[in-house]
């Protein structure tokens, strides 16, 4: 039962992911991404990770995608028309092929790595889903063993934010014919 459900959800997630890059309008992409996020959240639920599922919906569907929608509506990017339309233009051209090849290679590396680590982990060392999913388990892992990577990621986000502000400011200064300071 749950494995059938998993394959259905995986299919939905993949179709949504394909829709993100194939949809003609940005709004279509966002709706497809929403579908993918929900399918992933239910897969987490099936695996017993309730917190992860709730966090997935809360953070990605509830906050980040709303921000995307805000930007799309603010810029009023292209009307979608009365139904979803797909465009296969992103899949054509030499650059797209190169990018696709790199992405497939990276995905393969990830899959092989995942396969090796799950094979290497005996049931004794494999983390117990219940232990990880408990809030305390997550907190201990996040602020204990992984506290340095966790902080590094937040610094990365901060750096990205600063970079975006600098770039946006420079562009605006250029528009008004001023030299960036």
């Amino acid at each position, binding site marked *: 039962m749950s494995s059938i459900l998993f394959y259905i959800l995986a299919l939905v997630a993949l179709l949504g992911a394909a829709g993100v890059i194939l949809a003609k309008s940005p709004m279509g992409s966002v709706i497809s991404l929403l579908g993918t996020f929900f399918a992933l959240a239910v897969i987490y639920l099936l695996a017993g990770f309730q*917190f992860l599922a*709730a*966090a997935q*919906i809360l953070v990605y*569907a*509830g906050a980040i995608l709303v*921000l995307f929608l805000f930007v799309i509506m603010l810029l009023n990017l292209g009307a979608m028309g*009365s*139904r979803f339309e797909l465009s296969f233009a992103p899949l054509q051209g030499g650059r797209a092929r190169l990018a696709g090849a790199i992405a497939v290679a990276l995905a393969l590396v990830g899959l092989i790595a995942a396969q090796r680590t799950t094979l290497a982990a005996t049931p004794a060392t494999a983390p117990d889903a219940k232990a990880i999913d408990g809030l305390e388990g997550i907190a201990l892992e996040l602020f204990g063993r992984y506290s340095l990577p966790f902080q590094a990621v937040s610094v990365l986000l901060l750096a990205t934010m600063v970079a975006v502000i600098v770039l946006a400011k420079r562009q605006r200064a250029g528009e008004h014919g001023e030299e960036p300071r």
Partner: protein
Amino acid sequence: MEDFVKELPVWVLWVAKVAIIFGGLVATAALMSLAERKVSAWMQYRHGPNRVGPFGLLQPLADGIKFIFKEELIPAGANKFLFRLAPALAAIPAMMTIAVIPIGTIQIGETKIPFSIAQVDLGIMYMLALGGLSVYGAILGGWASNSKYSLLGGLRASAQMISYELTLILSILVVVALSGSLDLGAIVEAQRVNGLWNVFTPFGALAFVLFTIASFAETNRHPFDFAECEPELVGGFHTEYSAMRFALFFLGEYCAMTVMACLNTTLFFGGPSVPFWANAPWYVGILAFLIKAGFFLFLFIWVRWTLPRFRFDQLMRLGWKVALPIALANLLVVGAWVAFSTKGS
């Protein structure tokens, strides 16, 4: 009676609870549409609806029938799929969030039955995750309508929701830190054991004020109802909607208000606990919960017909420059207080 309840199959209890709580929510939402008109009439020295049924009590029913039989219009150039989907997206998450609210405990003989649809360890996460989705109705409805006013309404809804969700979550986290659990039932229990509602603790009081402000913004209510601000945007995101789809947006809004009132009661006012009466019978507890939630529902209406609407930039300034820093500082102090006060024990 007790033996009879014990012998019932489990699913009977589930169905009964879902029917009572869900039906109660929808009925409350319908009655709120009447209460809104009645209270506004009372405040403005008018009568309000009083023709259908005693005191106009059947007015929501008449409205419902009217909405069902009205003609539905879909504007030209609208995205039909999203246009039809949006009202459902506005109503369903708001209705689903009621499932984890602990309304009390039903006691028959020695058997205790928790009076809530689901007792979830991560109840607050569930509520926040689903509650955050209710804005999709306004955004997608506004976008799919292919109209300037709707688009602006949807745009405002998304900006407002992102701004105030942070304050809302941070003020809820204060309660979580004080109670040490994400389970709403455990939060009520912690307040009962301490004999102190969270609103009477200094941090809790501040969090309560912030939570109430943010809940007005989250439910799109006055003085923050910019997504449907009539003088500027005609009807905002639902300008192009008619008949039952329009009514669904309202049902969603009133359901969200009801859930927020219940959540406020649960987080800050001890849920079903009765002050100075620790061993109150279970029905008094449920009654206490309903009275407290009813007060917060009245507060929504009271504020709407008392305060003028903000300006959008004022809303953003209040959200980002006042409410958010205070909420962050509050959480920081609570965190420190909890960490140092529990260290010794």
